[in-house]
Structure formats: structure tokens, C-alpha cells
């Protein structure tokens, strides 16, 4: 009975607090909404970046050059090993390789006509599954293959893959730094704003403590207010993201079409995104109000 009665008291006190200081709470809520909106956009941008890296990564092919003097069984064993690791392997004979080169060279291929035999070695064109496209994995695969007797060389566009991965890595780090700065700044603004609200109610806190209220009893309504503000901020951010995606995103996609970016896409699971933003909002609001009320009670 005591816990239920206290929960009802906290709820009434929180609602009363929100009602009596609408301006202060509106500032907190809007701050939270802006932060969550930015986080939502950043999340979509990160999602797009992953897709871009993934699509470029799909272009990476590993070419394994085989020793023409090796037995067909030895060469076949290399292909079998790679297929056993879920890789798509296409065997390219010296003749097929030459035909491909002739096609690619066009008129300049005339000089190749006088060759008496196929100058190119047999090779394997390997498409690596997504989980193995990291530069480290590709490097390890190349080292392993180069150590095989039937293999004379391996080419996987080493520089391009590593540059792309480095760019993606840098962007992700920058994203994390921006995320931490954004969350930190939001917490500081929200807790400073809520501290104003708490300060305005310092007399109420003093009276509560006079009649025997514990710190937890004093804190609870403020924490509830923080969580409610976070949820309200999340609702505003979700609405803002929906409007942004419907109005500005298609125009952005057109502007950035040269990068093959589809623009800031809606999350594939909008309810999940809404839930995550609501939880993030409640957590930010709770943390901000905890910092504020904790600092006030310790002062």
C-alpha cells in the first residue's frame, strides 16, 4: 500500500511541477527533441554509410593466378578450398583471360594477334562473402593463398579496399565523438534547466525534508518529470524526422545522386526506431534530472 501511495504522490507531484513551470520544462523538452532529432538523422546517415561501403565492397574481387605447370588436380584443389568457405569462384582459362583482355583493349589489341600461345596464366575470380571483406581478412586470405604451391600471385585491389575501410572507420569514429559530445551537451543543458526548476521549488523540498521525506522521496518526482520530458522530446523528434524524410530527403537524394546515395532513408523498422528514440529520450531526461537533483540535494 505504501509503495502504491508513494507512486501516486510522485506522479501527482511531477504533473504539478510540469504544470507550474511550463517554460522551463518546454526548454528542456525542446533541447531533448533537438538532440534526439540529430541522433535520429545521424543514425540514418550511419545506416546509409554502411550501405555505401557495403555496395562498394561488393565490387571487390580477388584474382588468384595459378601456376600453368601445376597439375589440374592441384589447381582444382585451390578452387574447391575457396568454395568450401562460401566463396563464389569462377575459373578463367588462359584463353578466356586473353579474350577478355582483347575485348578490354579494343583496337589496341592488334599487337596481341601475333602471339603463338596464350601468354596469360589460368586464374580464379573469387567473390568474397560480406563478412570477409574487411582488409585484414582479405590480407590474411591473400597470404594464405600465396603460400599454396599452385598459386603464383593474388590481387585484390589492396589499396582501394584499405582506403575505403579507412574512410569508413574515420567516419564512424567521428560519429562516435559527435555522439558523445551531443549527449554530453544535452545532459548539461537539461540538468542546468532542470536545476532552475528544482531551485524554484526549493521551499517545497525544504518542507518535505522537514516532515521526514527521504532523498529518494524528494528525487522521485523530479526524475519522473525528466523522464516525461524525455518522452515528449522523443515524440517531437520522431515527428520531426518523419516530416524531414517526407519533405527534404528526396531533394537531398537528388542533390547527392552522383554519390549514388539514396538520401536519408527511413528506418526499415520505424517502430523500432521510435522505441529506441523514446528509450533514449527517457534515459537522457532521467540522467539530466538525476544530475540536477543530486547536485541540489548535496549543495
Amino acid at each position, binding site marked *: *500500500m505504501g509503495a502504491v*501511495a508513494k507512486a501516486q504522490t510522485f506522479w501527482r507531484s511531477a504533473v504539478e511541477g510540469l504544470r507550474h513551470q511550463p517554460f522551463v520544462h518546454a526548454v528542456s523538452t525542446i533541447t531533448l527533441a533537438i538532440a534526439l532529432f540529430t541522433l535520429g538523422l545521424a543514425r540514418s546517415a550511419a545506416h546509409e554509410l554502411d550501405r555505401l561501403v557495403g555496395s562498394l565492397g561488393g565490387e571487390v574481387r580477388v584474382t588468384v593466378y595459378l601456376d600453368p605447370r601445376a597439375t589440374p588436380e592441384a589447381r582444382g584443389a585451390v578452387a574447391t578450398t575457396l568454395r568450401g568457405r562460401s566463396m563464389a569462384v569462377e575459373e578463367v582459362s588462359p584463353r578466356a583471360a586473353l579474350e577478355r583482355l582483347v575485348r578490354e583493349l579494343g583496337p589496341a589489341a592488334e599487337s596481341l594477334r601475333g602471339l603463338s600461345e596464350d601468354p596469360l596464366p589460368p586464374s580464379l575470380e573469387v567473390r568474397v562473402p560480406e563478412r570477409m571483406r574487411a582488409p585484414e581478412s582479405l590480407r590474411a586470405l591473400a597470404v594464405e593463398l600465396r603460400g599454396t604451391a599452385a598459386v603464383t600471385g593474388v590481387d585484390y585491389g589492396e589499396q582501394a579496399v584499405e582506403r575505403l575501410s579507412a574512410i569508413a572507420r574515420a567516419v564512424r569514429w567521428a560519429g562516435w565523438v559527435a555522439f558523445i559530445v551531443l549527449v554530453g551537451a544535452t545532459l548539461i543543458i537539461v540538468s542546468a534547466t532542470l536545476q532552475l526548476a528544482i531551485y524554484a521549488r526549493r521551499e517545497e523540498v525544504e*518542507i518535505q*525534508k522537514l516532515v521526514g521525506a*527521504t*532523498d529518494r*522521496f524528494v528525487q522521485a518526482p523530479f526524475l519522473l518529470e525528466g523522464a516525461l520530458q524525455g518522452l515528449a522530446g522523443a515524440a517531437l523528434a520522431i515527428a520531426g524526422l518523419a516530416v524531414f524524410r517526407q519533405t527534404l530527403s528526396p531533394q537531398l537524394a537528388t542533390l547527392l545522386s552522383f554519390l549514388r546515395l539514396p538520401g536519408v532513408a527511413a528506418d526499415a523498422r520505424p517502430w523500432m526506431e521510435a522505441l529506441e528514440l523514446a528509450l533514449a529520450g527517457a534515459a537522457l531526461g532521467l540522467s539530466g534530472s538525476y544530475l540536477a537533483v543530486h547536485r541540489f540535494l548535496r549543495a
Partner: protein
Amino acid sequence: MIQMFHVTKAYPGDPPALVDVNLTVEKGEFVFLTGPSGAGKTTLLRLVFCAEPATRGQILVGGRNVARIRQSSVPFLRRNIGVVFQDFKLLPHRTVLDNVALALDVLGVARDEARQRAQRMLKLVGLQLKTESLPLKLSGGEQQRVVIARALVNEPALLLADEPTGNLDPGLTQEIMSLLSDANVRGTTVVVATHDLPMVERSQKRVVRLEKGRIVSDAGGAASVRRVG
């Protein structure tokens, strides 16, 4: 109920507010603390309900040593102590009923029961028709009666009142003193700090006089003259 042994309270840069005070208040007693402004009356009350710690000495309230009490235990001690201030300390945005029920909300008493008990206490102090008023709509005497109702609603063992009649005219002063005496008759130990000497003389209760932080006399009540600390 209250035992103070060699209690001193000093603030940096000021003369000590209390000096080597020894005082015992028995359960069920009614005691006046008197003395000029700055004598240490308010400080003594603040030490008893743990608003601040003593610089030296020991204070026992209901058998508990408040000098050694953990900060987290202070609220539980205060639930047994009703406090009445001259400046009322009422929540201006809450009704009279809500103000009185606050002391029960803190204890986790169910809302309906808390409101019923607050109603009964307001009836006892003669404010049954003002339950839905806001404090600022009441006269000074009525506000003080609300504070007394709030202090007594959870039936504390000890009631501390700091100048409870300071801003009131003689008629209202008598009313407030009657309420405090009634609480005392019902078993609550009452300590009232006041410099209203005529009221003290009329009451025929124990009077402890403080001057410059020291107890200079302790007379009346159960013993006609007590040991001076």
C-alpha cells in the same frame, strides 16, 4: 525524550550559539525556551531535529544519539518530531488539506486515509471549513493552525515550536497555545521557543532561559527549580 550533554554549537567567525548546554526534557513534558534574540533558542531546536550537527557534546532524542546518526536515517527521526515555525513554511500552491496531508504522504499512507486523517486534524484546530483554501488566503493565525495540524497529524512523540505566536495578536496567541497544550495533554512532548514572557508566565509550565548560548535558569513544571547547565 531529549537529553543534551555538554552541547556546544559554534559557527566560524561568530561567538558560539550554544555553550556547554546540559538539558533533559522528560517524555510528556511541556517546556518553554526563553531568552532574548540570539540567545540560542532556535539553534537548540535545530540541533534536536538534526538540521545541523553540534560542534561538541551528545544529544539523545528518544534514546537515539543524533550526533552519531547516519544522514540517511535523519528523515526517519524527523517523522517522530513535529516542527512549527514562525514563518509557517506552507506550500503556497497546495490546499490546506494537501499541506497537512503532506506529512502522511511522506510516510506512504494511502491518499484517502491521509486525507481523512488530515481532515480530522484540521477539525481539531478549527479549520474544517478551510480545507480547500490556499494558505495565502488565510490569516496568520489560521496559517499557524495549519502548520500545527501538519506537525501533529502523524502523532509525533515530540513537537518543537519556534516562536509559534511571534506574528499573532494576543487572542490568536491564546488559541495557538491551547492547541499546543491539547497536544501535550494527548501525550506529545512539547518544546516551545518564545520571547513572549507574559504568555510564558500565564502558562505555569517549565521554563528554560537561555542567554548568550548558556542556560541561566530552569524552573517550574514538575520541579520548581532545576539544575542549571
